[in-house]
């Protein structure tokens, strides 16, 4: 979120301007930048760098109270290639995979993931952050 937009939202929150005025001001800012006025307020600039890696960081102290740390960085290219390869699985085997996924609560059909969906999926991953915290362990999944 840029500075101007933040100021407008702060003015709106403090009651200095009405919601209509805020909308007009945001539209004016977007028009100046060449962004379509219908774009979402939450939309990030298009120049946002695409994530290159998926990081999984685990800290666990369950075992003897001593900390165990796991730090894994997986290239996005590998994820893309893996999903593409999964789409090549023959139909017979695909059914087995799908039923196994369904059994474990994943209602996803890997065969339906097309290259264009895959790019969209990877783009959306840039906003993904999973944080799991409890007293003895911490798991963090994010893209960088």
């Amino acid at each position, binding site marked *: 979120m840029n500075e101007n937009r933040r100021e407008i939202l702060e003015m709106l929150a403090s009651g200095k301007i009405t919601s209509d005025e805020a909308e007009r001001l945001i539209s004016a800012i977007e028009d100046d930048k060449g962004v379509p006025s219908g774009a979402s307020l939450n939309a990030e600039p298009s120049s946002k760098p695409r994530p290159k890696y998926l990081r999984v960081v685990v800290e666990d102290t369950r*075992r003897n109270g001593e900390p165990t740390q*796991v730090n*894994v960085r997986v*290239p996005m*290219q590998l994820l893309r290639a*893996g999903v593409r*390869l999964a789409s*090549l699985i023959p139909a017979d085997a695909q059914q087995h995979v799908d039923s196994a996924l369904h059994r474990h609560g994943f209602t996803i059909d890997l065969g339906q993931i097309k290259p264009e969906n895959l790019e969209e999926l990877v783009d959306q991953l840039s906003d993904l952050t999973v944080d799991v915290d409890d007293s003895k362990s911490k798991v963090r999944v994010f893209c960088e």
Partner: protein
Amino acid sequence: MIPLFAVVRVRNRRRQNIRLWLPLFLVWLMLLPLVLLLLPFAVLACLLIHMDPWRSISGSWQVFAGLRGTHIELANAEHHVLVHIF
């Protein structure tokens, strides 16, 4: 681009460090004749199970090439293992 080097670092409880640089490109060079030898069989296997051989081979290659940049690190009070693929 395929992975060319891998670094494996192991530290044990006595704080001894073992750091290995593995020249993967030499491994690939050594495996190349074997891969070329097995390629017709792989194509045949793909045809038998109704998979597109070209897409399968290119997909496998992409997975192989995608390994570059992979980083795995495990550490506890006694051991520390790190694998990084360049």
